[in-house]
Structure formats: C-alpha cells, structure tokens
C-alpha cells in the first residue's frame, strides 16, 4: 500500500492489470528508413530500468517503477539511426475502454547522433470506465540529436494516471517536452531530464487544468551535469471547483555544470476559492558559476481583462474561458497534429463550461 501525502492519496493499492489488446502505434504508411519501431514486448529486453536498485529515487518512486518493470502490458521501443530526421510525428495512442481498462506502458526511445524526431503519446478513455495508467518512458538523446516528446493526458474523471519520464541528453543534444494534463481523478506525473554533457538542452512546456475533484502532482526536474547546459521549465495551469495541485520544479546544478543556465516559471489561475494550489520551486547548486532563476505566481483572472472582454458581449464564463485558452494557446499550438489540437481545444472548452 502506498500513501502519498502531497495529494492526500492514502492506502493506495494497484488494481488488477489486464492485457491491452488494442493497436497503439499509429503509423500512416511505411516505417521510415532509419527508424526501428517495435512494441516493447517484441524486443529483447534492453530496457531494464537499471537504476531501480540504486539509492537515488527518480520519477514517481520505486513502487510505481518496479510495477511497470514487472507488469508492463504495452509500450514502444524506438530506435532512430544517426542523421535521420523524421518529418512526421510518431503517434502512440492508448484509448482505454471496458475491455482494455489498464495501460502499463514502458517506452524506450533512443536517438542516435544528429537525428531528429517528434513522438506523441496520447492517453485517453473511450467510455465511463475506471481506467488505470502507470507508465515509464526513458529517452536517450545522443550528441546533437533533437527529440520532441509530447504527452497528452485526457482520461475521464474516474480514472487514475501515473507517469514517469526520464531523459538523458548528450553533448548538444536537445529534448523538448510538451505535457498537456486535462483529465483523470488522480494524476501524478514526473519529468526528469539529465543534461549529461556539454551544451545539452531541454525545454519543458506544460499546461494543466484542474476541475471537479482532481488531484494532481506535477514534478519537473532538470539535472544539469554538463557545462553550458540549458534548461527551461514553463508551466501554465488553471484550477477550478475542488481541484488541488502540487507543482514541484527542481533546477539541480551538479558538479561540472559550469556556465549552465536554468529557468523555471509557473503561472496558475485560481478560478474558485475552493481550489488548493501548492508550488514548490527548488534550486540546488554544487557549482558557483551557474545561472538559475525561478518565478511562480498564482492569481485570479485579471479583472480589467475580464471587463474588457465582457464589454464586447461575452458572458463572464465565456470571457474566462477565452483568457484561459489564451494562456494555453502557445503550448497547444506546438502540437503538430491539427485534429488533436482541436480535440484538446474542445476538451478544455468542455471542462471550463461544465463547471
């Protein structure tokens, strides 16, 4: 049993895990040259989470990760050859339903030097099913490679979502994370990036929406090891009803990360007095010559903006919706698939109007 104080999760036990029988890799046409894309259970298991037995605790913790290691029922193994640049995003979609209510996905993505790709994971639920997701994604971005990893979570309000993401970035490599959190009853997600070598780079853009009784624990860490490594965390959220959220952003400058730069910014709109929002930014330094900055702000919708929009005939709720959508827009616009963008717009709209 797991107790998770931050989001008041008590005596939590894992549900029974069923097979996930649906196809989850969306690929239009041929597999591009230079890409090896397999279902994780079809590959030799080179994906042992090798630090599970070490003393450091990463991601959502050992209970969740050991569970993935033991019981995974889906996930991908993606290997991108050197110098291969994929034009179209790879889409992995889990649509949970009554026959397939559990997704335990283990994903490993390796990008060889000078390669480039976008991989999008979409977790959603088809029906009013009590779905469960616990996943683990490990990324290796080698020298001068560039990966964009997009995670969209819009499971229904009966479901539970847990997700751990870890990236290792080599010299001048780049990992961009985009995370969109719109659903589930309880959601714990963790993104940890190791900027291992010189001038490695990572940017994380996150948007989230809390409605109903949702509890969210969002944890983002940038661990600078390489000199001149660069990181940026930008999170925008809105909370309403009785939702609660804990945001933790860590900028960790380890020994050797000379001249590294990291920044984090969290901005949350509190739409109801009944919400609860905690922000815990942390800055850890083992090197002197680094730059780290963080900013967090929580506030209500700007009254002047609201009046301006209402003076043009928009109802209060419509005006608020527009302001929140506007805050989310820069992140949503970075999602490369038009249909998915529209789905997200509709989901945001539905949740804001259904207040």
């Amino acid at each position, binding site marked *: 049993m797991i107790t998770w104080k931050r989001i008041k999760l008590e005596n939590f036990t894992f549900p029974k895990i069923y097979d996930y029988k649906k196809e989850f890799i969306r690929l239009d046409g041929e597999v591009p040259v230079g890409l090896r894309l397999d279902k994780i259970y079809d590959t030799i298991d080179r994906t042992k989470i090798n630090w599970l037995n070490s003393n450091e605790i990463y991601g959502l913790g050992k209970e969740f990760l050991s569970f993935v290691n033991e019981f995974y029922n889906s996930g991908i193994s993606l290997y991108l050859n050197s110098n291969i640049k994929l034009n179209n995003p790879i889409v992995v979609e889990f649509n949970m339903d009554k026959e397939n209510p559990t997704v335990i996905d283990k994903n490993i993505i390796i990008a060889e030097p000078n390669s480039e790709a976008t991989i999008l994971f979409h977790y959603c639920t088809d029906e009013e099913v009590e779905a469960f997701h616990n996943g683990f994604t490990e990324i290796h971005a080698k020298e001068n490679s560039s990966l964009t990893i997009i995670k969209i979570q819009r499971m229904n309000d009966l479901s539970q979502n847990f997700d751990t993401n870890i990236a290792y970035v080599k010299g001048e490599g780049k990992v961009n994370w985009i995370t969109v959190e719109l659903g589930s009853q309880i959601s714990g997600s963790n993104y940890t990036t190791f900027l291992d070598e010189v001038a490695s780079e990572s940017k994380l853009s996150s948007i989230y929406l809390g409605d109903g009784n949702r509890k969210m624990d969002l944890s983002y860490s940038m661990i600078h090891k390489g000199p001149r490594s660069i990181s940026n965390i930008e999170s925008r959220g809105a909370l309403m009803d009785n939702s609660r959220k804990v945001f933790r952003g860590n900028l960790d400058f380890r020994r050797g990360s000379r001249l590294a730069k990291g920044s984090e910014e969290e901005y949350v709109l509190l739409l109801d007095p009944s919400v609860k929002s905690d922000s815990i930014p942390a800055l850890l330094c083992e090197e002197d010559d680094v730059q780290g900055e963080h900013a967090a702000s929580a506030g209500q919708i*700007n*009254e*002047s*903006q609201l*009046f*301006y*929009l*209402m*003076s*043009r*005939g*928009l*109802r*209060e709720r*419509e*005006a608020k919706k*527009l*302001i929140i*959508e*506007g*805050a*989310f*827009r*820069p992140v949503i616009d970075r999602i490369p698939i038009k249909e998915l963008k529209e789905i997200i717009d509709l989901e945001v709209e539905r949740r804001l109007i259904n207040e």
Partner: protein
Amino acid sequence: MENKLLSIKNLKVNVEENEILKGLNLEISKGEVHIIMGPNGSGKSTLAYTLMGHPKYEIVDGTIEFDGELINDLKADERAKRGIFLSFQYPEEIPGVTVEDFLRTAKASTTGKIQGIMAFKKLLKEKMELLEMKEEYASRYLNLGFSGGEKKKNEILQMSILEPKLAILDETDSGLDVDAIRIVAEGVKRIKDESKSILVITHYNKLLDFLEPDYIHILLNGKIVKTGGMELAKEIDEEGYENIKLRFAKV
C-alpha cells in the same frame, strides 16, 4: 421622445467609497453626436466605465435608461448586447486570443447569431481596409505588442464590426498622430452616417472638427455644468478650463 436613446438622471457614482459623479444629467437622442470635455479628474472616464457597467463603479443614486430600459444593474455583456460600445482609453492585451477569433466570438455574442468563418473573414477584411490596417493584424493576439495608435485603431475596428447603437469613445484621440486621427475620425464618421449615436469623451478637441458634434458638454467635478455647440469647444481651446472653473467654483 421616441427618438431618445440614452437618458441619465441625477447619476451619482462612487469608486472605492469616493463620490466621483455627483448628480449628472445627460440625454442623447438617436443619431446625435455629443462631446464631453473636462479637465483631468472631473469624472469623464468614470462616466464611460459606469455606462459600460464596470463592477468597480458603484451607482449610489440616479438612473441610466437605454432605449427605454433601466440598465443600472445590467452587467457589461448585457449592455453590449443592447448596443452600447466603449472604446477604451487603455485597451487590454489578451495573449493567445487572435483579433479575428475574438471579434467573431464577440459578434456572435452580441447578435446571438453564429458567424460563418468565411463570411466573417470577408467582413473583417473590408473593415480593416477602411481603417488602413494590414491584414496580418487579424491573426495577431489581441492588442499584444500593438503600439498606442494600433490599439486605438483596433478599438474602432471592433466598433465597426459590432455596430453598436451608442458608441462611447474614451480619449480615443489621445496618443494618435495626425494621420491616425484622420483614419479614426473617418471610422467614427461612418458609424455616425448610419445614424448611430456617439458620445466622445476627450480633453482636447482634435476629433471635433471631423465629427461636427450636435452638443458639447463641460464636465466639472462630477456634474455637467455647461452645454453648448462648437463655440464652447473654441472657448476652451482658447482659454482653458480655468475661467469655467472659477465661474462654477461657487456652485
């Protein structure tokens, strides 16, 4: 009397417990252009915000009737739907919302009719051309990074799209260069030609020559103290507000 659009009687308004408007009376008929002039702090912007229904401006006494209906307690969006428009002195910036999307939503809200994307695009393009605005503004975020003049033009664009019965222009001419004033004034004049009513709030009279107002009112210390024609504007232009202030100091 059927021609009457706006009727304000004995309006007293508090802002954070301070009385700003102290018994203001004003009547505007359909198709008329009224100018309110007054020195800083006389209550001009308070009148504009109060007419639009800003929640911070508390009506403590008096009535505002619009098109025969008491609107004292209506929210801003309800007033907009009835045909009141305020061109803001300092328009707000709304990141992430494009001019086009916003205006289409606003047009749908005020008319109660869904606006077809293509038809609306065409309408917007026409109106923008009249205001000599580049097409790219339609896809820019609302007022974000706009210059002072661009923001004011954008207000006039919104007005021409929403086609209100009463347009209130709060210091729309301030911060504009000569060319921009001409373009804005032409935009306002087109509204006037459609026999809409216009209330211009200003402390200069740059716009006046273009608009041929029917009435000029002097607002002083929360009340309209004098009403006249263009000669009043000339008097203020030449002598400033000091004479009028002195004359009404005793009141």
